[in-house]
């Protein structure tokens, strides 16, 4: 198991390096002069030129990349002489649009997305997997058909539609919840839950539907395996056959999917964050795009990608924990 994990960590480090290069190049591939973007309406060529030097944009690409990476690990000082300013570790750049360090913006937005994604994740995994199991156990019967029917609807409804529907009815029409106004759970837990409930449900509906179908098909497939027939031939009860022999085997693809879906959401659930005015990563990213805030765009892309890569590692480790064939080869 240990060598396996070490190997996976190396692969992850390699992928992160490649990824940071790609993200960096992306930043530079934009057909505008980054220095031009650094000053507002009262721009003179002199200011642009000064800013270019200050930000190191006059240096060759590889030097800029090295500076950027260095900034992430040890922080960075922009400019020289009297006009310097510090960007502390991990420095992801400076947003002139917002007059703020990108890292600060990310650190503010990250928890919001984290709560949103994790809450929805727990909700949909519980609902989706149980529904899938009930459907598989009652294959072909009314329970199965009902669950599959409902999940098909849930799966085909777009997130913005469900989100808006919930917002319009639950909040606007019926006044069951106040207008969403994000508060940190440590400052105002009640407001936090009142705000997060609908976004959680919105996301969970889509994913629970998908996981119900996935779980059902996985369970049906494993229930047809030879080793399930063996388990029955041993005289095990259906309950043990299902729980001990079938479920664990059917779990692997679900774990994979879950890891990637969660990672995807952690990078920012743009639509949901927008509908419910949640100041998360998704909104930060979209805001940065509309404002042409290049350092922020780069940073959000990097953060999202890091989530995907790290979750891949976690999935790989879980995989190995579940399936001995993976860890012993």
């Amino acid at each position, binding site marked *: 198991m240990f060598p396996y994990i070490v190997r996976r960590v190396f692969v992850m480090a390699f992928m992160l390096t490649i990824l940071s290069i790609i993200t960096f190049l992306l930043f530079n591939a934009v057909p505008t002069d980054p220095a031009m973007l650094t000053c507002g309406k009262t721009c003179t060529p002199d200011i642009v030129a000064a800013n270019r030097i200050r930000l190191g944009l006059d240096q060759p690409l590889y030097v800029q990349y090295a500076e950027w990476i260095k900034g992430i690990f040890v922080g960075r000082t922009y400019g020289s002489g009297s006009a310097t300013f510090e960007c502390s570790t991990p420095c992801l750049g400076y947003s002139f649009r917002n007059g703020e360090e990108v890292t600060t913006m990310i650190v503010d937005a990250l928890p919001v997305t984290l709560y949103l994604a994790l809450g929805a994740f727990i909700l949909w995994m519980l609902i989706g997997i149980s529904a899938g199991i009930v459907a598989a156990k009652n294959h*072909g019967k009314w329970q199965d058909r009902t669950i599959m029917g409902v999940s098909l609807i849930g799966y085909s409804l777009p997130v913005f539609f469900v989100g808006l529907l919930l917002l319009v009815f639950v909040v606007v029409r019926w006044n069951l919840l106040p207008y969403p106004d994000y508060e940190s759970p440590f400052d105002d837990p009640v407001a936090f839950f009142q705000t997060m409930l609908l976004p959680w449900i919105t996301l969970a509906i889509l994913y629970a539907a998908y996981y119900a179908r996935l779980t059902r098909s996985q369970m049906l497939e494993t229930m047809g*395996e*030879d*080793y399930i*027939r*063996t*388990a*029955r*031939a*041993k*005289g*095990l*009860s259906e309950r*043990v056959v299902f729980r001990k*022999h079938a479920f*664990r*085997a059917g779990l692997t693809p679900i774990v994979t999917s879950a890891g990637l879906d969660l990672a995807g959401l952690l990078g920012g659930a743009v639509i949901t964050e927008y509908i419910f005015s949640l100041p998360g990563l998704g909104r930060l990213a979209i805001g940065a795009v509309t404002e042409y805030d290049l350092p922020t765009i780069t940073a959000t892309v990097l953060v999202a990608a890091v989530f995907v890569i790290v979750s891949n590692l976690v999935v790989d480790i879980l995989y190995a924990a*579940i*399936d*001995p*064939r993976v860890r*012993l080869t």
Partner: protein
Amino acid sequence: MILEVKNLNVEFTTDDGIVHAVNNVSYKVERGKTLAIVGESGSGKSVSSLAVMGLVTGSNSKITGEVFFNGRELVGADPEEVRKLRGDEMAMIFQDPLSALHPYYTIGDQLAEAVQVHHNVKEAEARSRAAEMLTKVGIPSVEQRMDEYPHQLSGGMRQRVMIAMALINGPELLIADEPTTALDVTVQAQILDLLRELQKEFGTAIVLITHDLGVVADLADEVLVMYGGSAVEHAPVREIFYEPQMPYTWGLLASIPQISAKKAQLDPIPGSPPSLLNMPKGCVFAPRCTFKDQVPGDACANEFPDLLAVSKDHEARCHLTESQRTAIRTERKIGRV
């Protein structure tokens, strides 16, 4: 009598119609004896045995007839009662031991589990019984193997593990569904030897499913030949080889290399097995039978022959008369003539 199957029928309702997988099959197996069920792929060998074990449970299946295990009727019995017999008094091993063992549990865990389903013993006791049984089936360095997973063992070792797991509670009946088909030829012989030894030691009755008559000659006391879901010939093993009475059996015998090399008079059966969806109303074997012209009228195409006694203990299903059969066998050098 350990097992007595009477007029067993198994049907599956599918989108294409009703599949008659097993039709009116009857046989008996005595303590310590081996009945071989032979026949081509799809002839209903596995389904009939799974039905005996109570393992045909899909809502699309229907089982009729009688299965007496130690005098107890299992068809229609409380599934919970049958479950308690499974793995304890009757056990089953399968063709592909790699897919039949759970990939995620160690050999030791899987065997100990088999003990603990039926016996209220501690984990340690179950494991020591498992180790003992693994030693008995010829697994080397058992202590180490117990903690290994099925994919770490060779095919022959895996089948030994399956056998150990099946016999660990000392069942009176073992159903072995093509236990050697997935193995190398040399390993096949070892597994058959092992089964023979263990049978002698425990007095287990064995139902051995195979399509290999070489295996039958090796191990069986009695043979049931199945074709298209029906029993077409049923006889003691000597008679199947020396006095076969049914054209399908003749075809099977011809496909054994050693025999056909000596007297290559009969081609392995051309054509393919019947669809179990629309059974022909005549003899199931008629579409592939080269002797049907010798039967007067269109009897072979219109009337399914009964399973009739040819001699004591020997039954066959064929419209050919005894003298016709003898003539054909003499001419083609089939069996001992």
